[in-house]
């Protein structure tokens, strides 16, 4: 089965180069565009040529917004199918350098993207498309009256952080350093979602997670902003991959993510504009 998809991918690649060239032209000349970035026009003839599967490897924190964008992409380009693999940026990067057949990689930090670009696996320089800021997630109603990072050191308070080896943990440490706060958590979690889960299940009183995760959790946690989060903003880079089996569609997906429409979905989920 793998072999047959590879064969068809090759033909798609050949057709894709032409489609990409056409797309670039129509994107530049599209008059309806309100911002400077390239926007894909659903009515252009070039987009009709897109077909097949687009495989997008994306950081777990992008799950909600990218799923929405994937559905939008399939609507704009009938005949295409967007397949996502959401996970920790590090493990996704490892799969890509290990040869996983992906078209697009969207990472939660420049460091994890560098693993892929340093290996020469990106087809162009990665570009930052959104940024994510930390927030304190507390129990609903904020019963412990947490209003700053300093409040997290109150005795008896159970706080979880991400492990420093993952992007949210590195950001959390940066913010704590900036605030001059020394914090001993009850646990260093392996990713941002499991840190949040501990608060959602009320096992921990607070966690340092991304704003987008607090937003995605709905009313199960409450977000508290803190000024030092400005010192620990994470950039999210996106790149087309060198061995992408469906380059044209991959490029068009990146354009959708970076379009005004894409930006609207992402900021709606709590991301900051780059």
């Amino acid at each position, binding site marked *: 089965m793998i072999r047959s998809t590879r064969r068809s991918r090759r033909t798609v690649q050949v057709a894709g180069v032409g489609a990409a060239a056409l797309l670039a032209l129509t994107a530049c000349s599209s008059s309806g565009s309100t911002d400077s970035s390239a926007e894909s026009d659903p009515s252009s003839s070039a987009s009709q040529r897109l077909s097949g599967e687009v495989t997008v490897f994306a950081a777990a924190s992008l799950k909600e917004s990218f799923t929405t964008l994937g559905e939008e992409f399939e609507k704009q380009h009938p005949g295409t199918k967007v397949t996502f693999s959401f996970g920790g940026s590090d493990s996704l990067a490892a799969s890509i350098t290990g040869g996983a057949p992906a078209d697009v990689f969207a990472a939660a930090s420049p460091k994890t993207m560098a693993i892929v670009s340093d290996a020469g696996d990106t087809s162009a320089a990665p570009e930052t498309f959104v940024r994510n800021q930390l927030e304190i997630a507390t129990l609903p109603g904020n019963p412990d009256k947490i209003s700053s990072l300093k409040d997290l050191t109150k005795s008896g308070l*159970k706080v979880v952080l991400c492990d420093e080896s993952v992007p949210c943990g590195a950001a959390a440490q940066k913010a704590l350093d900036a605030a001059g706060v020394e914090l001993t958590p*009850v646990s260093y*979690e392996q990713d941002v979602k*499991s840190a949040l889960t501990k608060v959602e299940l009320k*096992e*921990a009183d607070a966690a340092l997670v991304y704003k987008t995760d607090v937003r995605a959790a709905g009313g199960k946690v409450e977000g508290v902003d803190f000024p030092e989060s400005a010192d620990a903003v994470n950039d999210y880079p996106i790149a087309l991959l060198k061995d992408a089996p469906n380059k044209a569609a991959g490029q068009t997906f990146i354009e959708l993510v970076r379009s005004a429409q894409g930006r609207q979905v992402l900021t709606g989920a709590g991301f900051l504009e780059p």
Partner: protein
Amino acid sequence: MTVRPAETLRGGPRRGRVRRRGRAVPLPLLVPALAGLAFLLLPLIALLLRTPWSTLPEQLTSPGVWQALRLSLVCATAATGLSLLIGVPLAWLLARTDFPGRGLVRALVTLPLVLPPVVGGVALLLALGRNGVVGQWLDAWFGITLPFTTAGVVIAETFVAMPFLVISVEGTLRAADPRFEEAATTLGASRFTAFRRVTLPLIAPGVAAGAVLAWARALGEFGATITFAGNFPGRTQTMPLAVYLALQNDPAAAIALSLVLLAVSIAVLAGLRDRWMTAS
């Protein structure tokens, strides 16, 4: 009269028999058997090949490694002890008594064997967490909270490892002849005395084999531990957790840690196997 633990648990038939049959192994069996062996050994060989031997001493002398290894050994041993304490009686109940729904109970006891450990961790959180079904009372009445504590690690490991002990002991009990116990009770011993003085010595090899399996499983436990007990160096960070987190940004360290865990597992399994698991 010999006690026969389940074949898989005592490592197959006796050596003498294997040797006698070894001369006449048919090719259609030998080839896939060797492929199976290679399949199981290849990842271990790869680990050895990729080990950064030159930097290994400094990787292994870091205090974090010993802290994690010590915690792993202590928690796995405690989990095995707890499993023996409540698992052997449970196995006896399943093997020697008859009650309605016993088949269902047996199935439920073995559930953690097939349950993804992370699911087990979530279930433990919902049961014994600070806000859990039972956990909230533990917290309110005794001030005990299990998540994020070393006790939590032991609980998580016991949940995953105890079924190995239970099925091993239950199998041994089923194979053991109950007439000895009956004889003891007819001679005036209480059922508990008969269990303690007759049954237990009879099934000792099966119990030991089950305990070794449970210990090894507890040592390697990852999913339930990180979900239920979290990850804090020295308190809840066992070796598998340390390996996983090291893999995120320092693969060489992860390989070194894996090697330690591998060596400890092999040493214990090999050492105990000869002493206990093949004895009858």
